[in-house]
């Protein structure tokens, strides 16, 4: 019984990672861009929501609607920040020679943004954890003696719908193809009429939206936000993304859940101290056995000789 509960706990935790892992996968699979600001966007969404709910909302909103409205504002903040990141990072990235370290260039600026956003949040909201005033404890239900969190179920469904939409978009719309073209060869894409400045922000908006969604669900689920909330979730989501394989959104879903399960089962059998070694060790083993993750395909190459 306890083991069943732990597996359910793992699935629940995994579904938190999934949203962020999908956000990571989105930018890396479409744009070949490892966007390290994602955990920060997630944190911004959470902290801004808290700040608004705590210090007062705009438009004089209050009462029972206050916290959902605050969460919506948090998501908007995350989207805006994500667009700002696009404006100053991806736009200046040029995969000119397609060399092996070029995808790391925007990494630098995305870390610049991490510094900016993290410290701005500290300046305005401090560095402490904060209670999020949502109806947290009411949102748990018991199914056959097993505790299940409703927000996580809801979030999982939302993310699934979102992913279905994304997969369809990438396959069947010209935006999807245009984005892939930009990632591979911006120069040639431009010649064909693709306008990076118009369609790349779409990806960043989606990333911001996913992070906002994840941040909101985190706040409601755990009743707490903090300027550090992105750190653990960020690295675990990356682990999930890699286990799943970089090219595939479904891979990210599977990977996120696998990481959640590994984490919970490790805690159950060996204690929390072993989690770090177990999760990252599992990742290493996966990579060594399947260098492109479980469902991934290989990264963009230079073409044949």
């Amino acid at each position, binding site marked *: 019984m306890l083991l069943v509960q732990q597996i359910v706990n793992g699935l629940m935790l995994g579904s938190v990672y999934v949203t962020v892992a999908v956000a990571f996968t989105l930018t890396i699979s479409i744009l070949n861009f490892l966007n390290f600001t994602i955990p920060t966007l997630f944190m911004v969404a959470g902290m801004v929501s808290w700040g608004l709910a705590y210090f007062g909302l705009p438009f004089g909103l209050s009462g029972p609607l206050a916290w959902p409205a605050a969460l919506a504002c948090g998501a908007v903040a995350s989207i805006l920040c994500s667009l700002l990141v696009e404006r100053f990072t991806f736009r200046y990235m040029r995969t000119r020679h397609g060399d092996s370290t070029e995808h790391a260039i925007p990494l630098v600026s995305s870390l610049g943004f991490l510094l900016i956003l993290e410290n701005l949040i500290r300046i305005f909201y401090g560095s402490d954890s904060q209670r999020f005033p949502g109806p947290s404890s009411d949102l748990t239900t018991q199914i056959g003696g097993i505790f299940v969190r409703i927000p996580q179920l809801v979030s999982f469904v939302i993310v699934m719908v979102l992913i279905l939409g994304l997969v369809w978009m990438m396959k069947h719309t010209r935006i999807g*193809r245009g984005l892939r073209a930009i990632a591979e060869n911006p120069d040639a894409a*431009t*010649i064909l009429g693709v*306008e990076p400045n118009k369609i790349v922000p779409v990806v960043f908006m989606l990333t911001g939206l996913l992070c906002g969604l994840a941040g909101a669900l985190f706040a409601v689920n755990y009743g707490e936000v903090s300027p550090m909330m992105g750190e653990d979730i960020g690295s675990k989501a990356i682990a999930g993304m890699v286990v799943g394989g970089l090219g595939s959104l479904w891979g990210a879903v599977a990977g996120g859940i696998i990481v959640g399960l590994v984490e919970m089962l490790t805690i159950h059998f060996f204690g929390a101290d072993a989690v770090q070694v177990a999760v990252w060790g599992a990742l290493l083993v996966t990579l060594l056995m399947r260098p492109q993750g479980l469902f991934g395909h290989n990264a963009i190459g230079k073409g044949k000789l």
Partner: protein
Amino acid sequence: MLLEVKDLEVTYGRTKAVQGVSFGVERGEVVTVLGANGAGKTSLLRALQGARKPQGGQIIFDGEDMTALSPAARVAKGMALVPEGRQIFVSMTVEENLLMGGYMRRDDGVHGDLAAIYERFPNLGERRHMKATVLSGGEQQMLALGRALISKPRLIMLDEPSLGLSPLFVEKLFDLIRELNSDGISILLVEQNTHMALEVAARGIVLELGREMLSGPAAELAANPSLAEAYLGAA
């Protein structure tokens, strides 16, 4: 006049690749641009398509000043470029590459046009669902051509289109150029295969170190002895 270029200048840092070149392409005319390695032909075409911002001069297409417009606007107006070195998307399939050519098209005729391309280049048709990276050099060149054709251009700019094509396909290429031309499509052709280029073109321009050195009717240029010595070789 479909395309009119006035005093175009393209520089890279201190290198002046194109210096004050002016010419025009009439509707349904084939114009060829000749010149040695580094003469600035590629730079010229890239500036015309908007891939590189010119430092001076004017580009007028169909009576409209395009100098400040984006490449997308130019594609939408009917300009297409087959870039030097093919520049296909190796991570996409052949068909996806062709569809990229139709990126700016809003009509649903694209799939019909695909079939026409596959008919013309059977090598592509056979490999339509393969990743473009496995194509041979010549096949990639065909793909780049097909990609430009899919956009239904009114002016098509070809940067060394015969590069890597076998003699049979070079023939087919020039047939295609004639065919397009008879359909009223204007063509700006950069070619190292000077003989054939001058055969198909009505007029030609010769660039040297970014400047226009000679220009005139193709037949006249073909007969020009100094040109023959510099570009045609003895063959």
